[in-house]
């Protein structure tokens, strides 16, 4: 029984380790191609047509052998391969070309305007064409190249896609709207995307994927309802469905290529080259062709990724089943055991205390959801590259390794040591001195008065206090430089916070003369608790004041010291309010601390896994301090 949690833990860890690697198996380069504008694979996967910015349309076989290469007089904007081997190529030279499987010209249609996009059903029965600055989507006869009809869209279009079975035609307009068109040229529906549309893809079921410049790929069903959306790192330049419609490939302008599943999950991501321009799946769904802006086509083997994802899903179901079974078995066993021992009475007690549990429920609900869950989430995700909403990949101790090599962290750690040493001196010595002074005042009224006067500094909100101190350090209007001038030391005036050499010390000096209220009150209460007889008898023995403080007060206050040291340490390690407000870690890295780096890792760089790892490290240090302290106290008590 005791082993079960460990088995579960191991299984959970194993789940995270499922490899998510795709390998760039091959790449083909096309000489003088420039941007790859479009890629289209034939239905049987035997051929791959590529359109380039360098005015060439190239057809490859599946091994990467170029079968033929056809020049045009301007950029090839789009290509489409039909089942019979026909290649349709649209070009900015205002022509739409059709070549047969051997490379012979079948027809060459002059469209009068630049042809921006062409797409066809696999059998070639539906061929849709977008030409420049036209509000009409054109249909072309695949056999002859004659324009047979048109659909009035009412606005200029960027691109068009026809599903493989020819049932669905989607045109993307420049005004961010998508138009679903019937075969007869009737516009069936229109729906809006969340940004400028760069690329679309449509499945045989009428589901449409849209890549936008809002760094998103959006998925719509045939009714025009948005069913999913995926975030990318940059403007999306291309999207494509696999033949079975289960996978969605994407490319963005930073050269990242993605594979998503239909449930909104990112399965894979990889960076190749400067910018991604085109993507296309091979019919088996195991190969992704990726076109870059430097004329390369990468053949990425993604079969393992997809399989890995499938496996993961299966493993998860399995794990949940096993876990459920184990829990049921454990409960059954426990009940059986209790019955045997005749301890079932506890349930009667629990039932009797039901109102008590109900009373505690809100508290514990909050505790589990908002305190325990984040703590474990932090521990767990410190081992991951954590991207909420995207993929979260297990990377072992990489976050921690990175920490050691992060100059901000090492610098921050050095600063933290300085802050700890000075901080402890600050929190202990001045309050102790003040507590002693107040304690030695004869007049109770004065004692009370001074105590209140010191606590009066609490009325300033902490942030306001920090901002006032920041102003003290101002080179021109600040209190410090003005004060130096006043006493004739104007030459010492300085940009205290602007100089990396003094910034940290300026931060440390904030709060002078450092009479912490909590510390003062704790010490003062401690002094009051010292029995009067002790001091009286010492005085009778002729001890002077200094002797009494050293030999009676300090030893009697050791508990307070311990407590304040621990509290101080924990506080200093975690605190970065002051640094954040006053210097923001600068100038350069002179006032960084690990906690600040953690905050920046999470907010500026969205590197949540790394931030968690930093948090976990600081937690480990604090825990160590606490444990040492507990041991220490125990041994002191003995």
């Amino acid at each position, binding site marked *: 029984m005791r082993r079960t949690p460990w088995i579960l833990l191991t299984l959970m860890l194993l789940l995270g380790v499922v490899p998510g690697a795709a390998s760039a198996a091959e790449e083909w380069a096309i000489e003088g191609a420039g941007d790859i504008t479009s890629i289209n694979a034939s239905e049987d996967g035997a051929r791959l047509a590529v359109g380039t910015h360098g005015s060439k349309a190239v057809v490859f076989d599946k091994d990467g052998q170029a079968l033929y290469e056809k020049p045009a007089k301007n950029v090839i904007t789009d290509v489409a391969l039909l089942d019979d081997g026909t290649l349709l190529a649209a070009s900015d030279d205002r022509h739409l070309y059709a070549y047969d499987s051997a490379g012979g010209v079948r027809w060459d249609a002059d469209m009068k305007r630049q042809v921006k996009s062409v797409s066809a059903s696999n059998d070639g029965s539906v061929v849709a064409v977008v030409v420049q600055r036209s509000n009409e989507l054109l249909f072309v006869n695949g056999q002859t190249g004659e324009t047979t009809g048109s659909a009035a869209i009412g606005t200029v279009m960027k691109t068009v896609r026809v599903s493989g079975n020819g049932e669905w035609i989607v045109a993307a307009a420049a005004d961010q709207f998508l138009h679903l068109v019937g075969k007869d040229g009737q516009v069936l529906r229109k729906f809006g995307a969340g940004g400028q549309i760069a690329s679309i893809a449509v499945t045989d079921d009428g589901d449409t994927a849209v890549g936008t410049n809002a760094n998103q790929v959006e998925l719509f069903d045939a009714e025009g309802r948005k069913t999913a959306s995926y975030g990318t790192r940059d403007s999306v330049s291309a999207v494509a469905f696999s033949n079975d419609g289960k996978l969605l490939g994407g490319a963005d302008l930073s050269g990242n290529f993605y594979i998503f599943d239909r449930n909104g999950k990112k399965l894979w991501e990889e960076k190749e080259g400067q910018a991604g321009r085109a993507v296309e799946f091979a019919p088996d769904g195991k190969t992704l062709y990726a076109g870059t802006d430097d004329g390369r086509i990468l053949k990425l083997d993604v079969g393992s990724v997809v399989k890995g994802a499938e496996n993961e899903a299966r493993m998860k179901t399995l794990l949940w089943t096993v876990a459920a079974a184990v829990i049921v078995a454990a409960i059954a066993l426990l009940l059986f055991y209790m019955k045997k021992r005749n301890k079932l009475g506890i349930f009667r007690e629990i039932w009797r205390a039901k109102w008590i549990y109900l009373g505690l429920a809100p508290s514990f609900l909050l505790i589990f959801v*908002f305190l325990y869950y984040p*703590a474990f989430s932090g*521990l767990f995700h410190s081992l991951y590259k954590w991207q909420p909403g995207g993929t979260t990949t297990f990377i072992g101790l990489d976050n921690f390794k990175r920490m050691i090599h992060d100059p901000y962290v090492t610098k921050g750690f050095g600063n933290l040591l300085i802050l700890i040493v000075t901080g402890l001196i600050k929190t202990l010595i001045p309050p102790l001195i003040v507590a002693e002074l107040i304690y030695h005042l*004869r007049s109770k009224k004065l004692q009370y008065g001074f105590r209140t006067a010191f606590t009066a500094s*609490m009325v*300033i909100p902490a*942030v306001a206090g920090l901002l*006032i*101190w920041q102003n003290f350090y101002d080179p021109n209007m600040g209190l410090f430089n003005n004060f130096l001038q006043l006493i004739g030391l104007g030459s010492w005036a300085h940009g205290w916070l602007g100089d990396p050499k003094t910034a940290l010390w300026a931060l440390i000096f904030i709060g002078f003369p450092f009479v912490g209220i909590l510390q003062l009150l704790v010490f003062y209460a401690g002094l009051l608790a010292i029995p009067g007889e002790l001091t009286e008898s010492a005085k009778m023995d002729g001890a002077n004041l200094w002797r009494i403080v050293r030999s009676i007060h300090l030893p009697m206050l050791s508990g307070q010291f311990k407590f304040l040291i621990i509290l101080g340490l924990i506080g200093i390690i975690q605190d970065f309010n002051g640094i*954040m407000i006053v210097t923001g870690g600068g100038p350069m890295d002179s006032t960084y601390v690990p906690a600040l780096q953690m905050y920046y890792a999470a907010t500026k760089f969205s590197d949540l896994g790394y931030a968690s790892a930093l948090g976990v490290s600081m937690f480990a240090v604090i825990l160590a301090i606490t444990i040492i302290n507990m041991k220490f106290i125990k041994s002191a008590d003995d």
Partner: protein
Amino acid sequence: MNIREHLNLRQVTIVAILAILVFLTLVPILFMIVSSLKSNAQILGNFWGLPAPARWGNYAEALNAIWRYILNTVGYAVAGSVCVMLLSAVSGYLFAKKTFPGKEVLFLMMLAIMMIPGILTLIPSYVLYENMGLTNTPWVIIVSSAAGGQIFGTFLCRTYMAGLPSELFEAARMDGAAELRVFLRIVVPLSLPILATLFIMQSVGVYNDYIWPLLTIRDSDLQVISVGLTIFTKQFGVTDLGTRFAAYAISSVPLLLIFSFGMKYYIQGMTQGALKM
């Protein structure tokens, strides 16, 4: 006679040293008040002098810029503190006066949270609230202060209520009072001092919180005073240093009010919390 003089001299020295230290401690407050009534020219030209003439307009301008933040924060602080009081009073009472199966385990679970530092949970909490859609709403402040504050509150209440005489409750119960009635009519009124302490400590905590609202609230209309003080100059194009100091002074008013009524309770809570740990 000699000894008395000696003593007096010593007392005078102590008073003098303490007076200097108090003055130094309060320098930021004094400086803030004096500068808040000056214009930029007055600060530059007459740094050490008193404001002449005093520019009260600074306060009007500052109030106009930050009233919203103050109102927000006071609202969050009150809501969060009331939640903490309710949760802590109930849990504290149950843990102090009741026996039920699993009491020790549940109490240990609360105790263990004290070992989890805020720095570990800061980022994961942010992700959690974000996923729940609570960020950039008042709830992100109220819920987190209620969840976090009730731990300390339960400890305080438990200790305090354990000291209440059980016979009192027994007597009431014998008179036929229901449990809820006993709690509301006897336990809560007797525990008012500790609940006041809790309320004041929690409100002051929320009022001074900076990092959490900075991380979770993006909308300026919902922002709290701590963050507001760092952004209002840009937001409202405030260039006058005097206005800035006036804003700091205004932002102290709620704390001034709460401390003038409840300083005793605050100090009690602070020292008690210190001793309990």
